[in-house]
């Protein structure tokens, strides 16, 4: 009888011949995460489930909470492993039943018998186990329709597992299974959510933050580092690049029409991001834009910001309302950080009446007044980065 954590795979189970590749990435991620918990752990994969066993010093509480950040896992369960025989299962229920019940007044038993050679069928397993619980724990009753706890007995190929139901995992695909992308990260609510959504699909996400000191503060920069850390918690590591656009902003302000300020700056950001992406072998850019949310996110505005780059630009928030984005930001823990009052862009550079129907020609004409290449090169020359693990 041993305490275990079971990770049940999500979409990955649909994979065919390349399933082993995805599985190895997921196991690598789990192994890396488990280094943060005390004790030694062994991993055992079978039947689309990864079973984690710890030695006597293992901190299973910590291990369990770490597993909530593994992409590719649909359900996490914490339970007991025992021999595949009814006597052992009943003994485990008597000894550990209170751990699954946790003070609940109603329960039901569910049996999953993937090993059909087991002598009892699912109904019989449930009936016997339910009886044992009723006999051994006071004040509990069976409620098959709406139980507080669902005690699940899984008869698998190598052993039997008992647990009190699972918790939703991070889902998605194992990190690293879908290449790398570069996120344009600001201190706002949307871009961290966009980064998370892409990372969830198995993409390593690195990020670039455009600062403009002294118009933006050190505090704003710290805030972006905290946001990147949150995404890094899911992917294991994240490189965060810093590029100052102060000179670019000043050149735009001195030479161009006010209504184009934001769009011109966005075009510079996209160009700079593409060059960084090329250098770090990222296959796409990611932004947090959503159609029509602000003036620079109308369809036409998105079009003229896209047209300066030659790689795919992913915008996973494109069809989400602000409150939907906020809900996601809360669930991944970035909302509170994004809501800190440090702006990542000074209102000084925000046009009062921005152009919401820009044309490419208009912007190309405006850019003729700027030393585009020189500005980009100087901005990139001052680039710094940090690695967050």
């Amino acid at each position, binding site marked *: 009888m041993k305490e275990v954590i079971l990770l049940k795979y999500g979409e990955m189970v649909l994979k065919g011949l390349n399933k082993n590749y995805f599985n190895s990435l997921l196991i690598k991620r789990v192994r890396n995460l488990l280094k943060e918990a005390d004790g030694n752990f062994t991993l055992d994969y079978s039947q689309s489930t990864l079973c984690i066993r710890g030695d006597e010093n293992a901190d299973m509480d910590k291990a369990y909470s770490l597993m909530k950040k593994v992409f590719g896992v649909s359900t996490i369960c914490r339970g007991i492993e025992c021999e595949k025989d009814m006597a052992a299962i009943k003994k485990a229920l008597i000894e550990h039943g209170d751990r699954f019940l946790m003070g609940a007044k109603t329960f039901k038993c569910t049996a999953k018998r993937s090993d059909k050679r087991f002598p009892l069928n699912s109904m019989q397993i449930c009936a016997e186990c339910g009886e044992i619980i009723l006999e051994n724990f006071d004040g509990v009753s069976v409620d098959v329709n709406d139980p507080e706890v669902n005690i699940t007995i899984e008869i698998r190929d190598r052993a039997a597992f008992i647990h009190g139901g699972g918790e939703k995992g991070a889902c998605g695909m194992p990190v690293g299974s879908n290449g790398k992308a570069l996120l344009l990260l600001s201190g706002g609510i949307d871009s961290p959510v966009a980064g998370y959504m892409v990372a969830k699909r198995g993409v390593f996400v690195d990020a670039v933050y455009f600062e403009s*000191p*002294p*118009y*933006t*503060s*050190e505090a704003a920069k710290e805030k972006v580092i905290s946001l990147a850390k949150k995404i890094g918690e899911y992917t294991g590591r994240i490189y965060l690049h810093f590029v100052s656009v102060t000179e670019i902003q000043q050149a735009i*302000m001195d030479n161009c029409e006010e209504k184009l300020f934001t769009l011109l700056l966005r075009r510079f950001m996209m160009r700079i991001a593409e060059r960084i992406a090329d250098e770090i072998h990222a296959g796409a850019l990611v932004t947090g834009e959503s159609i029509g949310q602000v003036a620079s996110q109308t369809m036409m505005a998105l079009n003229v910001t896209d047209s300066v780059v030659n790689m795919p630009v992913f915008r996973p928030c494109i069809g989400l309302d602000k409150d939907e984005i906020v809900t996601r930001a809360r669930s991944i823990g970035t909302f509170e950080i994004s809501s800190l*009052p440090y*702006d990542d862009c*000074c*209102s*000084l550079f*925000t046009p009062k009446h921005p152009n919401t129907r820009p044309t490419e020609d208009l912007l190309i004409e405006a850019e003729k007044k700027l030393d585009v290449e020189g500005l980009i090169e100087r901005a990139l020359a001052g680039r710094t980065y940090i690695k967050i693990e």
Partner: protein
Amino acid sequence: MLDIYFDSAATTKPCQAAVEAAVKAMEEYGNPSSTHFRGLAARRIIENARGIIADALGCGADEFIFTGSGSESNNLAIIGAARARRRRSNVIVSTDSEHPSVEKTLEYLESEGFQVIRLSTKGGKLDINELREALKQKVALVSIMRANNETGALYDIAAVRREIENSGCGALFHCDAVQGFLKTQNRGELTRYCDLVSVSAHKINALKGCGGLYVKKGTRLQPIIWGGGHERGLRSGTENTPAIAAFGAACRDWLSQKDRVQAITALRDYAEQRILKELGDKVAIHRPPERVCAILSLSLAGVKSEVALNYLSGEGICVSAGSACSSHQKENRVLYNFGLKKEEVDSALRISFSHMNTKEEIDLLAEYLKKAVDKLAR
């Protein structure tokens, strides 16, 4: 990079005496309420500090309690007095430029049915006629700060006391003296004119997490924290012995320098003169008729506060912004009510001093303010 600190109104660097007292008090780990020798040793530290601070305020030791912060003192004084006197009157008189820990507390009491009258403080001066008008009814509490935390304006608490006495409105007088404590020439004024006085340790070179409240003998307050009945039942919670020890030590250290207020005033005046010389018409100094020694409020022409702050911080100089640059942040109530124009509010800076600053630091500050304007003015 430089390392110059002109933000002493936000917090001050703990003085050596405070640090030593705190470290020593940490060894005295007993609970000050325990009756064994460990508890008694801790209690002695606290009562010693209480005695020093009460002396500085000119009150009895039994009229001063320790709290967790200046904000907590303000909350306790205002909510505690308002609730205790509700049956008498539900009117509270205050000003339009109080610290958030007073203003937000008043807003909370308004939601509970209290009526709050906010007196104008335009130009940094309390409108005595408005006050006289407001006191023509029964009033539960008057809460007016001694020194404004943004403009440095000193409000005339002697006049407030006079008006309360003449009106017969029966109000208690609370004063938020977090910025004013020890920083005016007349130390005894607070307890002479007021019934309740809030002070904070970390504004006088002690530690954060410790405040105090003077409660004049016979003043009834309802506690806002209940528990073991510490601090005469007004503030339950085991006392923070190290921070209280540091508060007492810093207070003693301050009083040992007889001319400290003059020295800080001289620094501020020198700064004003140097900055004016360097920047001329590119700077507007905001001068209330009476002001506290430690605060200088000014606006740079064409440079938003936040931008100037970021620039100075990048060079290693700490100051405070009068207002945020961002358009969607709440506008600065205090500076508007002082009478500044929008551009002045947007570009306001607060330079605040302690006795630890030097003239050389002020020369550098003036130089970098000039650079900020030359480089960043739009």
